[in-house]
């Protein structure tokens, strides 16, 4: 069911006319959501995604992709995070953050959390560009061909049916 939902979301993103910018922002923010291991930080990022008019489906897709990727990337994030957290001139800033009321719940002082957050932030622009370009290229060159695939037709029909049921209800 979960895979089916992911597939449906992918079909919606690719086959409909949703703004490529919304999809690109959603994908970039969703990537951070997937990379960061801390639940509190995930919650904060999720609220941000929900508050801004970005594509939530793209965010979920990116979350799923980067969640899987992060298992492999954790050792790298650990190294990055350790280096960042040990920058001496930032120590006072970290100490201040550490003693703020809510911030410690984000576990920013964990090397993997910090490493993955920084990596996610750095990847925002590349993720946006890649996502936008891929979407535009797809819609221009491949959408017609793919829409004829049986699986896509079924999924599209399912999505339409679901929407009709929602409207009737």
């Amino acid at each position: 069911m979960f895979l089916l939902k992911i597939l449906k979301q992918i079909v919606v993103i690719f086959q409909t006319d949703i703004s490529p910018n919304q999809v690109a922002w959603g994908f970039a923010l969703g990537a951070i959501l997937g990379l960061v291991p801390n639940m509190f930080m995930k919650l904060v990022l999720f609220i941000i995604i929900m508050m801004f008019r970005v594509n939530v489906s793209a965010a979920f897709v990116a979350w799923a992709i980067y969640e899987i990727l992060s298992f492999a990337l954790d050792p790298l994030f650990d190294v990055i995070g350790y280096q960042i957290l040990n920058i001496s001139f930032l120590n006072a800033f970290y100490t201040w953050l550490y003693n703020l009321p809510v911030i410690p719940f984000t576990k920013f002082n964990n090397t993997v959390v910090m490493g993955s957050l920084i990596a996610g932030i750095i990847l925002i622009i590349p993720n946006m560009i890649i996502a936008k370009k891929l979407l535009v290229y797809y819609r221009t060159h491949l959408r017609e061909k793919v829409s004829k695939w049986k699986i896509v037709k079924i999924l599209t029909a399912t999505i339409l049916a679901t929407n009709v049921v929602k409207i009737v209800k």
Partner: protein
Amino acid sequence: MKIIRWSFLLTTIIIIALITIFNILFFDKILKKAIIASGQFAVGAKVEIDYLKTSFKNCSITINGFRAADKNNYFKNLVDIEKIKFDVRFAPLLRKKVVIDEMSVDGLRWQTDRKTSGELPKKEKPKNQQESKFSKLFKSAKDKTVTEFNNLPSVETFNKIQGQVNNFDINKLIEDSGLSSIKEVEKVSAELQNKYKSYQDKVNNFNYEEKINKAKTLADELSKSKFGSLADIANTAKKVNELKTIKKEFDDILVELNNAKKDVSATVDVTKQIKNTIASDVNMICEKISIPTLNTKNISQMLFGPKWVNRVEKTIYYISIIKQYIPEGSDEKKVKEVKQRALGRDIIFKELLYPSLLISKINVTGTTAKTKEETGIDFSGLIKNISSSPSLVNAPITLELAGNNSIQKINVTGLFDHRTKDSKDNIKVEFTGLSGTILNIEPNDYLPLVDTANVDVAGTFDLNNSGFLCSSDIAFKNIKEKALNTVEGNLKYLAQITNSIKSFDVNLTAQTQDSENLDVKINSDIDKKLYDAISKLFSAKVNEAKDKIKQKVNELAQAKAKEIEKSLQGQKDEVLKQITGKIDAVEGIEKIITDALKKQK
């Protein structure tokens, strides 16, 4: 392009608003219930709060009418506080830490009366409320000590004195003693009776008649004798010799009879004979009413021991409750270093650490009066550094309360140091000018009216991990006298004894060092004062009683002697009469013999 997703934002705002409204409407009630529940768990009796109000603006809490019942007396309140107010710091709250910089506690009173019972319904009673090791130790030690106090020799002695005072009756005492003088009178009487009888028998058994006749015959023959021949002379000489022999016999009988007469006619003075016996009787009875030897060391133990043990038990119980809620510190300091984790490493920065609960300062005001109408001592003071982790705060809990009115003064200091594993708890209490009623000493015939005394109390209670030392000095002054006209019977003696004591001091200690044995020591000058008063009064009373006993014993013995003398008088007269008759007869014949012998010359 619209950047913000307003539907989500509005939904979120509505949810937050609903939570806030819920808190405004119900948070106070929930918090009140939580405080009551935890309070009831801590004290084991009902906790009531009249009014509780929280303010989210400055995180303040106001509690009015806080009352916690006393689990040892459900119709008394352990504490009764008019108003408690404090502000909680917001930031630590987000880390589940309660930090209060300053708290004010106004109108603190204790042991106030309750209209309803403070007993918890059985189902709400805390099941697993653990007794501290001191409470457990104390319970067993207390029973042992109280039994020891009740078996003290002075208790027996006091009971003996009480029995003696209550049952003092000269007649009964004499009757129970079995007087030797009376027995002696009876013995003397029997001896006299025997003596009289033996004389009577002796007089009756004398064979006079034959000898008298013979003497008469010889005297008659001599008066008629003629000396015609030598044979007549020889015959007369023979008769003279015979008569002389008879006279000699009569002389001896007369001596014997005179002696008997002298002996019998001697005054019968039984009283004189039993004089020494009466004296020994008096001494024997007086010994029975002498003052028993008192061990002056333990009168006060008997009087104050159980009370002191109960008070120490109560104090230890409450300090134990405090101990229970202040965790022991640890000697090991936390080493702040990078921790290795499966997912990354935590870099630890210098943290402003807070304990779960920290109340930096509590301003306390209160009164010792149990009701608003009563005049008590108004006091005020500070409690500092209450925390769930004293080692983190690195300061012991301190308590300072002081107050006075025109007569009385109160000063309480306390220190609860739980920063290390070797915790130390100390409370010092000083009261001056108190009424004796505050000590709740039950009225006792052996004690002066302690309720009327002015009392100064200085107590110290020290607890550490291995044991405790509690000591208290109590000075009773200006004790009023018992009204003697309200006391009846022999209790007047006791009232006179206790009335002579106007002041006394008591020093009490209770300690354990090896967590096994409770050593309770009680010293007081009331021991000596009571002993002196008892001795003084009893000496006078004993002397008075001795005089009465002497008089009474004399009266009894003399009456008996007189009765015996009277009954013996008849027998004595009869014997004398018989002896006198015999003497007369013997003297008569002796005269005849003498005359007859004279003529022969």
